């Protein structure tokens, strides 16, 4: 039945969606979601995913998203209730509110993981489900440092006693400047540590995820070199510096300093502000496109499933062009171009991706003992897909 080919076979991914098609789905999603005050959003999400999955094919078969909207609704309702409780507490019982916030913060890795596992579990190709092998302990080791870093960055002013209230209350100016310099050195240290460690952290993060994706019983594995991440972010830094300098000089030409200080009213026109806003934003948009494109190529080109490999070759120029024209179209049409831009992006991404196989793709489904009927209901409750 299966023939052995001596040459590897290349299967191009294809995307068959059409902007007009998707527009109908998108607008109905929007209207029904608003009319039902958000309840339909779970169904909207399922339909959107089914549309994009179903229109993506490789080796003659489409993908499918099989999640039950009711489960997603449950997850979202829980999230909203938590949010309300938190808001309520913040106004009337601030200490309790802070406690809840900390608990939420600590639970983020778990929730994120659950969300990922849920999405994988209900994605399938050729009637074989994807999966994600959770390793909660390792996830916490990975994600908790990030959460702590963020908390430190936000809480630092309070820790060093230099919030506006503290400064206003301080009597001794020498004390004040000592505290401020301590804070500045701490922030500097934190920023540098963050910048130096982030590429490495990100490499471990993607390795954690990539090595745990499953398709049926087949395990994915990802081969990532740390130096690729450092190269990526170094290049990104250089790009952002170069473009920012350019933006700076351009903006100076635009903003004229009045010759007479007495006439300086302080506020440039709203139009100038808008142009400046766009100018200063562009280097970051370009560099974001750069990072995203390079990362996507890096990840998908280095992931394997047994003897199946993948190719991903997004071109930076084209991606920047896509992002730029999408953004402009969305602004000009006040959002109506969103479906069109999503379809465009999906099509290009699929076109640039391929699967390389040696012979037939043989993947066995996960053992039937893995998913028991009752157990599934329980774990599904914790597998919240809340739209992360």
């Amino acid at each position, binding site marked *: 039945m299966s023939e052995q080919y001596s040459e590897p076979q290349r299967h191009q991914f294809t995307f068959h969606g059409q902007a007009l098609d*998707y527009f109908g789905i998108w607008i109905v999603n929007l209207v029904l979601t608003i009319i039902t005050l958000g309840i339909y959003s779970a169904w909207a999400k399922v339909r959107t995913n089914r549309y994009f999955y179903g229109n993506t094919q490789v080796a003659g078969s489409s993908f499918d998203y099989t999640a039950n909207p009711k489960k997603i609704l449950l997850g979202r309702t829980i999230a909203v209730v938590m949010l309300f409780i938190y808001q309520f507490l913040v106004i009337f019982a601030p200490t309790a509110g802070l406690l809840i916030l900390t608990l939420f913060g600590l639970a983020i890795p778990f929730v994120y993981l659950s969300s990922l596992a849920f999405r994988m579990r209900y994605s399938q190709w050729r009637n074989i489900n994807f999966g994600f092998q959770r390793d909660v302990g390792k996830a916490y080791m990975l994600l908790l440092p990030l959460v702590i870093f963020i908390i430190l960055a936000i809480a630092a002013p309070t820790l060093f006693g230099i919030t506006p209230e503290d400064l206003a209350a301080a009597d001794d100016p020498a004390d004040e400047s000592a505290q401020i310099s301590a804070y500045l050195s701490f922030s500097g240290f934190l920023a540098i540590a963050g910048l130096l460690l982030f590429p490495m952290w990100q490499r471990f993060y993607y390795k954690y995820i990539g090595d745990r994706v499953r398709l049926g019983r087949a395990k994915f594995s990802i081969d990532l070199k740390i130096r690729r991440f450092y190269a990526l972010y170094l290049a990104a830094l250089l790009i952002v510096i170069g473009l920012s300098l350019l933006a700076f000089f351009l903006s100076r030409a635009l903003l004229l300093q009045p010759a007479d200080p007495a006439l300086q009213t302080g506020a440039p026109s709203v139009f100038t502000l808008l142009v400046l806003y766009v100018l200063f934003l562009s280097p970051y948009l370009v560099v974001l496109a750069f990072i995203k494109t390079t990362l996507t190529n890096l990840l998908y080109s280095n992931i394997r499933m047994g003897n199946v490999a993948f190719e991903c070759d997004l071109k930076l120029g084209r991606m920047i062009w896509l992002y730029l024209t999408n953004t402009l179209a969305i602004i000009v049409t006040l959002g109506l171009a969103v479906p069109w831009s999503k379809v465009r992006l999906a099509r290009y991404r699929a076109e640039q991706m391929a699967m390389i196989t040696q012979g037939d793709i043989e993947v066995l489904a996960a053992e039937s003992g893995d998913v028991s009927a009752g157990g599934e209901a329980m774990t599904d409750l914790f597998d919240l897909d809340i739209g992360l």
Partner: protein
Amino acid sequence: MIQFRGKYYDGRSSASIDVSISVDDEGYLQIQDHEHDRVHSGDITVSSRIGNTNRFLGLPDGSRIETAAHDQVDELLDKWQGGDHSLAHRLEKNLRAIVVALLLLVGTIYALINFGIPALSENLTAMLPTSVDDSLGGEVLEQLDEIFFEPSGIPADRQMELKDLFASLVPDTERNYQVEFRSSTVIGANALALPDARIVFTDQLVSLADDDEMLAAIMLHEIGHVVERHAMQSVISQAGISMLVFVLTGDISSASTALLVMLPSFFLQTRYSRTLEWEADTYALNEMLRRGMDTGKFADIMETMLAQAEAEEEAEQELKRETEGEESGSEANTERLFEYFQSHPPSRLRIERFREAAN
């Protein structure tokens, strides 16, 4: 007899087999050249239609068939499963429904913006005790002092005079009304009503006024903001706008949607401010009439503020014209356009209203 082709996946391995499927007149499904248990079309699950994606038929034994034969599948559904239950798909495919949906969407958003959110803000504010407003305003003045304000240059006895004037205008309520004086080159001539019933006057505004009656009029306007609890309403309406935009844009996964989110929020908030200014004017107008004050004075001071703002703008334009040449002409027009979105300076309409009441 219904016949179509598809790909068969047994669910135990990823093998894909091209198969022919037939459904006989009693509804029993048969996959050619493939042994399987007897299955009736009424017992299979059919994925609801979405766009033009392939359909998935799920058999009771866990296997699935992927097929593009929409017509045949629809026929199967009609005959053995009571038709296509997907209302969503019918709406999505129906062009007229889409147009209606678009109009409905625009209408709903319009209603929410013009009636829904303001009504919500007002009602919600009415339900909350004024202690909430007080806690909102707590640190605002201190933060403003850090950034915008310098200590006032008005002599102490003059400040006492103005404070006495203010005290005579304060309504008889439990709120703790205070007036504060500051100097601010950035903000210029202006007055601010903080949520905790503290009102700030800038030196620049005090010097603009010809007499104390003008200042009294402005004091009443600011008191009006506090009485109506506008700050609280602003907070709620801002949250409402954010929520609306969030729901509309759904998953904010791209920078462009994030950008789109911020622009309408900005415009809407200034739009709401204009309504609130009008309301504060109403309070001031009624109080002035009740106390037998000359409402023309309020019109006068607003005119002075307007004249000064226009003069500053003229000077700016003049300077730009000198240094840039004629290109700045179109920018001046754009500026006038953007003034629509600004809540200050005072509009002609507001000035007229107080003039007419004086007659």
